[in-house]
């Protein structure tokens, strides 16, 4: 019905899929920081295009899955870009020629440029996030964060368990809305629905916590079934990513 988009097995077995999740997370963080620092449209275009090509080529992500995940975020990027162009102060500068003039709305070239640049940046950030999500196994991510990045176990495995429960939350929502409609109440939205969701989520989290404790979770030092080791290919991945980032940033002034 409503499912969390999970990475496919073929993507997880790909070169990017096998790369350490921590290395990927570091690189995505670096690229996003670079995108935040530039106002030029060229770096986000280059990094976004490389991100797309790499997730399809090296990450073996199916085009359809990529498009489905990207569609809502791509729409958001365009909307943000559009409003930034329309509301840009340069539109009020009478010395600039208007590209479009529609009643009170006047669009100048610098405003359109700034809007396009912002749309590119938001779009590139979306691409990087999706490329990471569609090539990374959640369990491996948590293992890697605990073992390589020192994230506390209790938090990491708790978050993993909560993540598994998201589809159930969607089922609860359907059920609570049905219950309202069948009682002759407005089903679309009501604060009581939120209360119901919260109660059901807390009950479930409670059961999960008891089940985890019963298995000895957090009772002592934990051993590791899957050991996340750093490898030279991770270093090479990070290095190549860093070089691309520097090159892209240099191309945008």
């Amino acid at each position, binding site marked *: 019905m409503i499912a969390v988009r999970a990475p496919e097995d073929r993507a997880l077995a790909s070169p990017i899929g096998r790369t350490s999740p921590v290395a990927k997370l570091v690189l995505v963080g670096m690229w996003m920081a670079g995108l935040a620092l530039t106002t030029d449209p060229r770096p986000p275009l280059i990094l976004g295009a490389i991100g797309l090509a790499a997730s399809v080529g090296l990450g073996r992500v199916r085009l359809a899955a990529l498009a489905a995940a990207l569609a809502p975020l791509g729409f958001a990027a365009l909307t943000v870009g559009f409003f930034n162009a329309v509301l840009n102060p340069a539109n009020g500068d009478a010395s600039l020629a208007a590209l479009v003039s529609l009643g009170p709305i006047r669009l100048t070239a610098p405003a359109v440029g700034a809007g396009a640049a912002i749309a590119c940046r938001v779009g590139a950030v979306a691409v990087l996030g999706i490329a990471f999500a569609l090539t990374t196994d959640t369990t491996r991510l948590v293992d890697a964060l605990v073992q390589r990045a020192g994230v506390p176990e209790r938090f990491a495995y708790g978050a993993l368990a909560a993540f598994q429960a998201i589809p159930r939350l969607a089922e609860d929502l359907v059920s609570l809305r049905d*219950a309202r409609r069948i009682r002759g109440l*407005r089903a679309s939205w009501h604060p*009581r629905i939120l209360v119901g969701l919260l109660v059901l989520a807390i009950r479930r989290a409670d059961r999960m916590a008891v089940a985890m404790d019963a298995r000895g979770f957090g009772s002592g030092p934990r051993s590791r079934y899957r050991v996340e080791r750093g490898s030279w290919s991770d270093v090479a991945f990070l290095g190549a990513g860093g070089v691309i980032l520097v090159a892209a940033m240099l191309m945008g002034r």
Partner: protein
Amino acid sequence: MPGAVAGRLDGELVVGGQRAGHDPQALVARQVGIVFQDPESQLVMERVDDEVAFGLESLGWPAPEMRARVPEALAGLGLAGFARRRTARLSGGEQQRLAIAGVLAPGPGVLVLDEPTANLDPDGTRELAARLAAMRADRSSTIVLVEHRADLVWPLADLVLALGADGRPIALGPPEVLLERHATQLAAAGVWLPDVPGREPSALGPTAPVSGPAGGRPFVEARGIGFAWDRARPILRGIDLELAMGDRVALLGPNGAGKSTLGRIVGGLLRPTAGTMRLAGGDPVRLPARELARLVGYVFQDPERQFVAATVRAEMEAGLDARGRAGVAEVAATLGLPLDAFGERSPYSLSGGEQRRLSLAPVLARRPGLLVLDEPTYGQDRHGYDLLVAFFRARVASGSAILVATHDLRLVADLGARPFVLTPTASGAIAA
């Protein structure tokens, strides 16, 4: 595991030399494994083998031993070859067996199963019972099984401890002895007993069909109903179904066969993707909520999924007109939830039995022509069950039709319902 649950423990509980509630939880966790009702809220990891390893990791097993133990534990519950499957995509029965494999992997001396068949279909229940029988024969661990339904557990038990509503033991002994000496006492306390030939099967008497008014145009008419979220994988296909006033139809079939989906379509909560649905001559999905509420009443398995208000009184009054609200006190009294005692309490603070009764309030206040029930009897003791059956029979006698999705064949018989079996196939559910 008294430390994890609020409350007070009197007396002393010693398991394998460890005092529960006093000794460190890890020492107790090594001795006792617990499996709960709902498989989905006890599975932590994404993949089957990681799930089994989770408990071993928590107890600090060395990696090579884990690698040897995980496949063994999976094979022990008939899950060999499942190692890399995603836990969320297993059937309910497979999930419950996985939960048991995970709990058994560290080799606890005691395995506690808390209503393990709660969310399982008959096939899942049979699979699980067969595994439990094998584990019993193998005598490697003590099994403590908490169950309402005696038909499953009675033949598996060496010893039965029956508890009364006040938490005091009614009787403890081998099953034959309990049946022989304490049957009346147990039945009076609402304990389910296995059906033994010659014994009265139900306090309500014989399970003859309830007769309802016949003839006339069917109240519910489904023609060629199909449903699919995704065109390639239909959930329902070509369903024809008719219910006249007073008719009872039981939707049967494994989990995932589309029973709840069909219930939602018939109840006007979901638009079918194929076919036509008629309720009292009209299309139920197009009806305004107020109209629909007059025609259909719903009872879900989990009452907490259907509460819409902050207090018991508001819950009973929700969506009613002035005349309906005036009758609420009587409805509350009938359900044993008098307003002066319960009116201002939160529905979420009620006991399970009280919640179940509260969930019947809308049906009692509105007397809709169709009742859609989704696993209404699960987890009920004998008293709760008898109350539900009497309630539904009274509705049928006054002309309501009932569509019930259930695994509970006893309920089907007690309502005299016509079985309607849904089978999931590669091409979707087909009525058989």
